[in-house]
């Protein structure tokens, strides 16, 4: 679904990010347009998740260089909640458990906050209940999860479904899904992938951060980026993902080192 004239949603220029004083992301350039699906792949420790968390505004991830425009606005001038309200969504690799906060109340609070920002009507608890149950059905989620605390005692797969449910409710312009496939069995992966595909439109975009090619069998990316050492060292199309699957990452790194040395 690549359309060259499509609106640019995210523009990353020379982004550098440090965690606890150590630079992890060392200069990323990336342009994401409406209607595109990008996959960011790479070995563990390559900086994929750091990049994702910095975009969402995690306070421990300090931007030390470069900049990011989100729909033309300087992303780093926005607090995490302002980014969410502006339409940026991060699906967490490890969704956080919040004992004592009911999932249903939390989902409604998040939904209504974002709706209010968009000038749309908020839903009362009864209306919301109907609405959220409909969305849960699409994700094959047990409505019993509404009555529990946020992610508290959920299995890995349940947590990931809860993330996609939040994405379905918040209808972001740009969703960054950080290792959403990890910890999912094949059935859960299919359900989650079909949920993501259903939410994808020509007006929004997805960035899938993933370690494995598996997810990309179900969600077909327009671009595949390989990250290593805090940089994107290669960009290709979905064929690249398959090649990585069969050949591993070493050849990309060697190719990159040769290019840099030249």
């Amino acid at each position, binding site marked *: 679904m690549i359309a060259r004239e499509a609106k640019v949603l995210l523009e990353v220029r020379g982004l550098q990010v440090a965690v606890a004083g150590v630079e992890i992301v060392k200069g990323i350039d990336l342009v994401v347009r409406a209607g595109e699906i990008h996959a960011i792949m790479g070995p563990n420790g390559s900086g994929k998740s750091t990049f994702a968390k910095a975009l969402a505004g995690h306070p421990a991830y300090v931007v030390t260089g470069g900049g990011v425009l989100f729909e033309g606005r300087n992303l780093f001038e926005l607090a995490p909640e302002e980014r969410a309200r502006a339409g940026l969504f991060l699906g967490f690799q490890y969704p956080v458990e919040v*004992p004592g906060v009911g999932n249903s109340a939390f989902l409604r609070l998040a939904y209504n906050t974002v709706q209010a920002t968009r000038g749309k009507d908020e839903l009362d608890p009864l209306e919301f209940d109907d609405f959220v149950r409909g969305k849960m059905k699409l994700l094959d989620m047990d409505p019993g999860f509404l009555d529990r605390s946020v992610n508290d005692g959920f299995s890995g797969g349940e947590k990931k479904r809860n993330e996609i449910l939040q994405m379905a409710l918040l209808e972001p312009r740009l969703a960054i899904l950080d290792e959403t496939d990890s910890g999912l069995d094949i059935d859960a992966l299919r359900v989650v992938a079909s949920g993501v595909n259903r939410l994808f439109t020509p007006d929004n975009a997805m960035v899938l951060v993933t370690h494995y090619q598996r997810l990309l069998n179900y969600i077909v990316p327009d671009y595949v980026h390989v990250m290593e050492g805090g940089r994107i060292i290669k960009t290709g199309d979905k064929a690249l993902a398959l090649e990585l699957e069969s050949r591993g990452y070493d050849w990309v790194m060697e190719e990159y080192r040769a290019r840099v040395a030249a």
Partner: protein
Amino acid sequence: MGEEEAAGMSTAVAAKHPYVEALLKGCTELPHSPLSWLDGRRAAALERANALTIPTTREEEWRFTDITPLTRIPFRPGRSAPRLTERDIARFETPEAAIRLTFVDGVFSPELSATAGLPYGVLVKNLAAGLETHCVPVEPHLARHAAFERDVFAALNTCYLRDGALVIIARNQDCPTPVHLLFVAAQKEIASYPRCLVIAEAGSRCTLIEDYVALGEDAYFSDPVTEIVLGDGARVTHVKLQREARSAFHIATCAVALGKDAEYASHTVTLGARISRYNLSVVQQGEGARARIDGLALVSGRQLADTHSFMDHARPAGKCVQLHKCIIGDAAHAVFNGRIVVRPGAQLTDAAQESRNLLLSGTAHVDTKPQLEIFADDVRCSHGATVGQLEQEQMFYLRSRGLSEARAHNLLIYAFGAEIIDRIPVPSLVAQLGRTVLEQAQTAA
């Protein structure tokens, strides 16, 4: 003031401590009871009160809790209470509790009490009257469980023993609605000595709400003692709400005795008082008894809230689950000392204690101390304590879904308290306390 009772309690040896002596002024004017055993116990308590002093931080049990501010105010006993109307106490009513005893400044108020249509096998009345009608079941228990030998505040209360709540649930009876014991502070500089005796006979069930409230903001002193006896297989849920005025002093003692297979659940919520102390001791007198001990202290400003609990596994196969939580704002101070003793022979004891504390400011302070003394080998005992600020990861997660920083902050404080509050089996209290936590969270933000 009242005429000198010729028959006044006459063991008027000079007290060792001038402040105790001042507090005792008036107790010698109380009339003798026709019950010689009761007179004997009061005289013994007076003797101990005279011998004891106001504890200082040099004593291990009071190391973290300096009560000298109490001794700067000359409290006097409340001989008579102002007449209040239903409207004065309407905001403290608990709709679920059809049965209520109300005490104003420690004095029983029949007009504000509701004991009509008590179910079969349930007795709820003023202790002073109950002593005349139910002396036989009361005698083995009153002032028998709450030890006053080394505790000046329990001794003082026992010296003044007169009005109070008497609850007796007969064998295998079930009290269908909660019993609300409402202690209202109305006048300033009054010392009141509320007393409760609850006897849940074998196989009976009941829910108590022991509730301390104030009409004003003036300083006063509450010194309550509660004794709860659970017969074999009895089940008692005990909600204690301490919502005294924020300039008041509240030093409470509660002693619980558990029969075989009895089940006791304590839900203590501490919100008020300038300085408060709660001494809760639970003795497992029969095999297989179970206790859940929940506590939540929510303090701010310059409040100090101290909870000392003592779970005594004197018999085998007991189970105890304790969770104590503190939310501490401003320059407030919370203290928790959780002592668990497993006596020799109390095999198969299963005890788990957790103390979790949330500091909302750089000047908030908590002292938490588990104290496990285990003298049996086949037992499972665990304890843990955490002190922290709000979880950064939780804050970020909520904010990443569009919630403002303040909203996320309040929600997490609420959630921290909700774990305790939600287990109170009285829906109107759950809702009310939930709102209180949210309000306090907002002022701490």
